[in-house]
């Protein structure tokens, strides 16, 4: 354990550890973005990554399903495990990894296809459905889980881009769920949405954690407090403090955490 991270007295070790990052260092060319980050992601919990802009929280999130691989100059060292297996090991199939660790992005990005095809996209490319009926059931279930089905059931063949922003984001969540992942990564999923759509997504996140492990990057401390059980606070590429959300927001140990949650930095 990195010595400069202060662990709270409330222990989180009783939770099953779904993912774990150890001494994760990330650099873009000459610029180092993350320094020796250690984080433990508990199963069926929502883990929030908070911190001011440019602190490296999104970078860390993108390491968890190796989305950083798509950036040529990005270099990742350290160990990240999923169910105790190193996801950066040479034998790992990146495509399969991303099917297990799905991702929802900051801006809703439905494909320019119909609502049905958007959700069916994952199952199709991974060959999850055995028949047409099977596929339809998967799409419906995913949309139901994403809380969107009742709103779109009559217009499954209309383009996904025609939905409202909040609906689009739930469509993207449904698209991620349809691949049947273990973990869902969310990169500021509500930053492009209005307060009502945000509230809907937050309720949805709370429901989803029964089945999935969720890691969410957020700019809003209120949102972290509302939806997450564990919180990691990043600052200038370092993990400053990690603990349960209650502890971080009520009794932060590090002065920088205290300053951030009271609005003095950020």
């Amino acid at each position: 354990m990195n010595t400069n991270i202060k662990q709270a007295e409330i222990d989180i070790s009783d939770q099953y550890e779904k993912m774990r990052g150890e001494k994760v260092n990330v650099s873009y060319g000459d610029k180092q973005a993350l320094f020796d980050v250690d984080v433990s992601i508990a199963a069926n919990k929502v883990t929030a990554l908070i911190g001011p802009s440019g602190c490296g929280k999104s970078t860390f999130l993108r390491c968890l399903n190796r989305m950083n691989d798509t950036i040529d100059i990005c270099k990742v060292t350290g160990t990240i495990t999923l169910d105790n297996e190193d996801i950066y090991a040479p034998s790992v199939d990146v495509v399969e990894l991303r099917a297990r660790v799905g991702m929802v992005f900051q801006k809703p990005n439905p494909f320019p296809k119909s609502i049905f095809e958007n959700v069916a996209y994952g199952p199709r490319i991974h060959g999850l459905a055995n028949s047409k009926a099977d596929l339809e059931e998967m799409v419906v279930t995913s949309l139901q889980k994403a809380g969107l089905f009742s709103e779109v059931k009559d217009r499954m063949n209309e383009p996904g881009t025609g939905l409202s922003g909040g609906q689009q984001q739930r469509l993207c969540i449904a698209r991620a769920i349809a691949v049947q992942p273990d973990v869902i990564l969310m990169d500021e999923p509500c930053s492009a949405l209005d307060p009502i759509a945000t509230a809907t997504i937050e309720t949805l996140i709370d429901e989803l954690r029964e089945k999935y492990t969720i890691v969410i990057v957020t700019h809003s401390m209120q949102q972290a407090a509302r939806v997450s059980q564990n919180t990691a606070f990043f600052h200038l590429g370092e993990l400053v403090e990690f603990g349960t959300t209650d502890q971080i927001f009520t009794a932060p140990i590090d002065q920088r955490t205290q300053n951030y949650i009271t609005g003095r930095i950020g």
Partner: protein
Amino acid sequence: MSLLSIFLIVLCIAIAGHFAGRSKALSSANGKASGLHSLPAYYGTYVLSWALFPPMALMALWLVISPSVISNAITSTFPVEVQSLDPAKTSLIYGTVESIADGLRQLNPDQITEVSKDISLLKPLLAENGIALASDGEAYMVTSALTMISTQNTSRLLLSIFVIGISLLCAFYAYRKIEPRFRARNRVERFMLAGLIAASTIAILTTLGIFASMVTETGRFFSSVPPTEFFFGITWDPRFASAGDTGSAGQFGLIPLLAGTLYIALVAMLVAVPIGLYAAIYMAEYASPTLRSIAKPLLEVLAGIPTIVYGFFALVTVGPFLRDISAQIAGIATGDVANFIQAQSVLTAGLVMGIMLIPFVSSLSDDIITQVPGAMRDGSLGIGATRSETVRRVILPAALPGIVGALLLTASRAIGETMIVVLAAGIAARISINPFEPMTTVTVKIVSQLTGDLEFTSPQTLVAFALGMTLFFLTLGLNVYALYIVRKYREQYE
């Protein structure tokens, strides 16, 4: 006075006006630039613009209008029987008079009197001065030529007086207006605006002029050949236009030319589209930034090669190569070494034109593929799609309207392409589905109808305009449709 010296005098007036205006502005503000509404240079520019542009506009207008006025005046001095000849002959005589006038300018007054008395002296005298006449000329021509000279001289003198006078007047007018509160800056802006409008007007009028001349010449063609025969005829056999026999029967069927054009364009697109598109996908989606920064300009160099170079590449390399290889294949297959691909063929032309079009397809498609938002890629990769799945299922469908637009633009280039087909496709106007034989295109026939000794009024020549119009509407239609599709596509992401 020559046009150049008129221009130089006006320029001097304008520059002098610039300095005068500037210093008047400064002195009116007691030498303090801060007391002026605009920077001192603006007052100078204001005077300069007035002294320069209105006279220049007048000069341009004069030069455009005066030749036709003079020509009408001269033609009216011709004897009645000459004036009643058909327009083509009259214009021929007018041309002779013009060259006589050119010649007479170089003779001294005594010689001119001699020539006026004895017309037979005209031709040898002018020949001595380097002006060759086609005919001996007639007496009335000399009179007309003399009138022409004097009219032209008067016109030039009036032009000089008017232009320089107006320049002075305008400069004076502008100079008078200068005072500290005068808004020279805003006035100069108006001159700028007028200049910009003039530039775009010239561009538009030129286009309209070209179009109008095409329409009238096409109209003349259709007055001797019925449109139905042109558009639906399947034989292209224009014959030769012999002098005096303007009605000589040729067959002007567009169909074989159009078939050849479209066939060669199709072969070219079959070559260019897959290669260009795959190159674009590689450049946009896979290539590292370093590789892309080297490979993309290299690919675009291909677009800078003049098409005539592709043409002789087709003629001396690709055509013979295809011919020889086909002979060898035939030798292996049948034992008879007869080439079944001819050196000039649809295949040769299409292949080389396809290579020429690759950079257009790849460069346009690359721009369109990179315009697809990165979020689409992330969304697809983020749920475990491979890159090629992402390209096939997300990027290409999203970019499809734009790519179709790009392909239509490329197709319109293929249809209008000339040099490659002139050299590589052959000139036989035939309808065939065998790509190994020569066919010809609309552009090739335009070239061949307009090359050599021609009589301009014969349908054999005028058909070039009809062919040109056909091509024009074909490519215009494709371009408009392509732009429509591209524009529609852009709206999706904005």
